[in-house]
């Protein structure tokens, strides 16, 4: 095995390594440590790669050339070389641990898990098998009759389809290829109740399932529960659509709410104020009406008073005339001389009445008074 093929940077260390012994570029314990003129320490491969990219120290960015790098003091090299590591083949099964600088020797001389060339056919073989006969010859599998290389036989036996396997439940020996299928029908395989989705906690061997199901309350209730579940999903769906619709409607209600919520009170208030206005109007109107009635009454009274007086005047006049007619009639009956005189002066009764009877005098004077009054009116 070539020593150059050892990947020191991926070695696994037995304990965590002080970070002062680690390279700041690869973050692993230093391999072939070097230090720079600015006194920073790196693995030699790491700093060389970094300098190919940029001619500065990766830590402090000062200018740095390849010739500014020299091997680190031997003490540092010893510290990292003596760190204990696992064999790089530990994953293959090697349990060897040693100081790092001994790994190379272990791999080239001792490690059982290093591939070597077969002495007979030249094929790859692990060191632990290299001393025996050639393991690359074909051999017939005694179970499935396939031809397999001896070196692969161990792996084949784990999956040989012809090999009998034991059922882990009923201990029955059957061919491995059928084992999986058997598992689905094995009477002793542990299964859970077919109503476990509904919550039945039972689990037991398959052969006991029918016995359990005869008494399983979950199995009895299964149709009911299923119907319920269906109904529930239906209701949930409906609920969701309804909620969506409510959400759509809510903004609209909110809008109308802002204009209408006071409506009842406001309307009542409006009615009340209107009523109050009307009541006031009514009061005013009735007052006016009263006034008008009084005025009307007074007017009527004045008018009727005047008419009454006039009527009285007329009545007096008529009385006067009647008396005159009466007097004239009596004169006509008592004498004929006077008749001519009276007939000639019919338009002026008061003048012609002067020389008449004293009893009649006051009456005629009253008459003329009444006439004077009537003319004045």
């Amino acid at each position, binding site marked *: 095995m070539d020593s150059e093929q050892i990947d020191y940077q991926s070695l696994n260390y037995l304990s965590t390594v002080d970070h002062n012994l680690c390279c700041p*570029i690869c973050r692993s314990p230093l391999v072939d440590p070097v230090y720079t003129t600015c006194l920073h320490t790196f693995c030699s491969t790491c700093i060389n790669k970094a300098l*190919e990219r940029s001619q500065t120290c990766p830590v402090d960015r000062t200018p740095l050339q390849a010739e500014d790098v020299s091997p680190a003091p031997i003490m540092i090299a010893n510290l990292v070389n003596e760190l204990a590591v696992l064999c790089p083949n530990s994953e293959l099964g090697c349990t060897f641990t040693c100081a790092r600088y001994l790994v190379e020797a272990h791999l080239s001389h001792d490690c059982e898990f290093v591939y070597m060339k077969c002495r007979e056919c030249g094929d790859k073989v692990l060191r632990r098998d290299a001393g025996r006969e050639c393991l690359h010859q074909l051999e017939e599998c005694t179970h499935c009759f396939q031809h397999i290389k001896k070196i692969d036989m161990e792996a084949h036996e784990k999956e040989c389809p012809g090999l009998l396997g034991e059922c882990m439940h009923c201990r029955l020996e059957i061919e491995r290829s059928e084992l999986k299928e058997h598992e689905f029908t094995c009477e002793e395989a542990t299964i859970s109740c077919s109503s476990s989705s509904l919550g039945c906690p039972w689990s037991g061997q398959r052969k006991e399932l029918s016995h359990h199901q005869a008494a399983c309350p979950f199995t009895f209730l299964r149709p009911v529960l299923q119907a319920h579940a269906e109904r529930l999903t239906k209701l949930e769906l409906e609920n969701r659509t309804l909620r969506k619709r409510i959400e759509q409607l809510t903004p609209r209600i909110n809008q109308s709410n802002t204009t209408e919520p006071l409506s009842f009170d406001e309307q009542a208030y409006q009615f009340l104020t209107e009523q109050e206005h009307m009541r006031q109007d009514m009061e005013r109107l009735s007052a006016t009406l009263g006034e008008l009635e009084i005025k009307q009454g007074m007017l009527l009274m004045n008018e009727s008073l005047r008419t009454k007086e006039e009527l009285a005047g007329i009545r007096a006049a008529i009385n006067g005339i009647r008396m005159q007619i009466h007097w004239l009639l009596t004169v006509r009956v008592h004498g004929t001389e006077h008749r001519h005189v009276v007939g000639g002066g019919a338009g002026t009764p008061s003048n012609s009445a002067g020389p008449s009877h004293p009893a009649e005098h006051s009456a005629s004077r009253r008459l003329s008074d009444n006439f004077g009054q009537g003319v004045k009116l």
Partner: protein
Amino acid sequence: MTFATRRLRKIVGALPPGITLVRAEDFKEWQLDIRVLDDNPIYKGKTYRLSFKFNINYPIDAPIVTFVEAPGITIPMHPHIYSNGIICLDLLSSGNGWSPVQSVESVCMSIQSMLTGNTRNERPEGDADFVRSGNTNPRNIRFVYDDPTV
């Protein structure tokens, strides 16, 4: 195992506060979420996602680091971060900015402090033109690092 893989394997352990590993299935691309730890109002309560692309020479070569979008995750506003996620950070330039002693954690922390110290809620000048030009490889861009405030 490559040099880059070996080196990357070493940091999967503890990450600094505010930084979480989201995806690291291979050693070609990693995604990490970062949060700004102080009360900077521009980034308060927000998480951003960084994508690291490594080549086989990491850490000799710088990784390509960009912000990426994800459901609920945006590209942070910053005068040195383009809206397509490209970050203008000296540390990430493959010239003399990057150093092989840098690491995923140190890059994350530098970007964290770049956000922490920022007070300008804006994109770099010419962001729209830059993004339209379709340049998504930060290595092809010559950044100007002339702004000492950020």
